[in-house]
């Protein structure tokens, strides 16, 4: 329990900063940008009506979803997703790596608590931080959706949409953990955090650009792609499987690393 409390306190600042940033960015998108986007609907429709209908079919455009609130959410998710991912990596590296970075692993390991338990407690701490964030995030979105449309009722689509950041964060939690438990040195946090998250972003963007479905399993930010939810009302099965495998692998490997690696002071 002491460890749990300590870790939570340790994560508090990171948690608060990221929660505020993500919510502010989402507000910018959904409150500041969406109205002007919506306004242009008429003008765009006028132009699109001149297009041959075959062409419209070929670019696969559903005007109604395109200009809907959830459609815009799916667009904004590109950025919210990266930030949520970054937050998860940052929380997990900070939890599992800070002793390594401060060269004080040996102090922690000599305490009368098994490494297995330490791992579990640390894991619980990060998970609670992530769950807290998502409660706030989902609450904020509930407000945004109702604010935009008074008739709005919670449905499965909404749950899938706002659940996407949480599931993505679980994947990135695993990636952060495996980084923190695998490397020998941690010099600073920011480098690995940004590299992992933006690396995933670049991979995802390129995979989406070349439109190869088979490559989707290596694009961690599109595992729970809201565009697909808006279009088809469900996550992509193979992506979900890939996400589960990746997350379980990372967590399992981290567990083994954490409980078995020898502590080398350099």
């Amino acid at each position, binding site marked *: 329990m002491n460890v749990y409390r300590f870790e939570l306190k340790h994560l508090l600042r990171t948690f608060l900063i990221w929660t505020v940033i993500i919510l502010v960015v989402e507000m910018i998108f959904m409150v500041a940008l969406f109205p002007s*986007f919506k306004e242009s609907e008429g*003008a765009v429709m006028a132009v699109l009506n001149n297009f041959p209908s075959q062409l419209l079919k070929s670019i696969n455009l559903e005007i109604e979803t*395109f200009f809907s609130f959830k459609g815009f959410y799916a*667009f904004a998710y590109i950025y919210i997703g990266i930030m949520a991912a970054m937050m998860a990596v940052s929380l997990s590296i900070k939890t599992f790596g800070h002793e390594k970075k401060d060269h004080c692993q040996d102090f922690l390991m000599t305490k009368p608590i098994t490494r297995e338990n330490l791992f579990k407690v640390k894991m619980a701490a990060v998970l609670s931080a992530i769950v807290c964030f998502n409660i706030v995030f989902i609450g904020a979105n509930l407000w945004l959706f109702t604010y935009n449309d008074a008739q709005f009722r919670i449905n499965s689509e909404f749950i899938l949409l706002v659940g996407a950041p949480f599931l993505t964060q679980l994947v990135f939690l695993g990636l952060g953990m495996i980084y923190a438990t695998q490397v020998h040195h941690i010099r600073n946090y920011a480098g690995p955090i*940004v*590299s992992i998250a*933006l690396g995933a972003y*670049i991979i995802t963007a*390129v995979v989406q*650009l070349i439109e190869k479905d088979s490559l989707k399993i290596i694009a961690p930010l599109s595992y729970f792609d809201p565009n697909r939810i808006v279009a088809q009302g469900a996550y992509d099965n193979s992506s979900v499987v890939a996400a589960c495998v990746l997350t379980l692998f990372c967590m399992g490997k981290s567990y083994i690393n954490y409980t078995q690696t020898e502590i080398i002071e350099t």
Partner: protein
Amino acid sequence: MIKQELKNNRNSFIGFTLGLGCILMGGFVKFLSLSQSESIDILEMMAAFPKVVLAVFGMNQLDVQTLSGYYAILENYVLVLVIIYAIKLGYNAVARELADHTEEFLFTKPIKRQTILLNKLSVGFFFLILFSISNGVFSKIAIAAYGIEGQINQLIFYYSVVVFLNGLLFFAFSAMCCAVVKRSEKGSTIAYAVFMLTYLMTVMYDLIEKVNILKFFVPLRYFESIDLVSGNFKSLWILMFIAETIIFVTICFHAFIQRDLSEN
């Protein structure tokens, strides 16, 4: 000492260049099928749309059906990559020894601090040049390997220059941050945070009409893709890059020389 530094940075250079290669070689896979399909001139009709609509379409004023437009989109990701790399280089140059607690050894050697920093920075500079050259080379190879028709040598050259300038700017900025703050790891955190902020502003810049004032804060858009694609290279912005870089480097030297070596 330069040799040592070159060796220290070799692995991450290989890693980042591999990433670069993957983006360019992988990215062009799709272009093949695109260019073969019948091209429709949607772009002209859409020119009247607001920026934000185009962005949701995923278009951003660029015609993905032309080689140059497609290349510009890929290069936007390369820019992100080079900036991450540059910040890492800047951190390595200024703060790595401090984090490893080896700076005391280095500073007792009979070399001036200026020389130390100069050497370290020039190694980073060298790697950035190498990186932008590889950008050009990989682009050529990718286009040749897939047998894509069309000449975009000039565009490749422009983009290599832009990649280099952006890298240089953030390299200097990151070095400055690491030199100025007391705890060096904070320096790289600040540098990355500022990068994320500028990236966010870039996104906003792309979405909102008529925000010219923002342009000064978004190095990623000093050269706009649309201008580059049409061969309109606004050289004046190079001066902007150089001026900012010089300011950052000067502050960096100033702070590095005066730094206290106390253990944190």
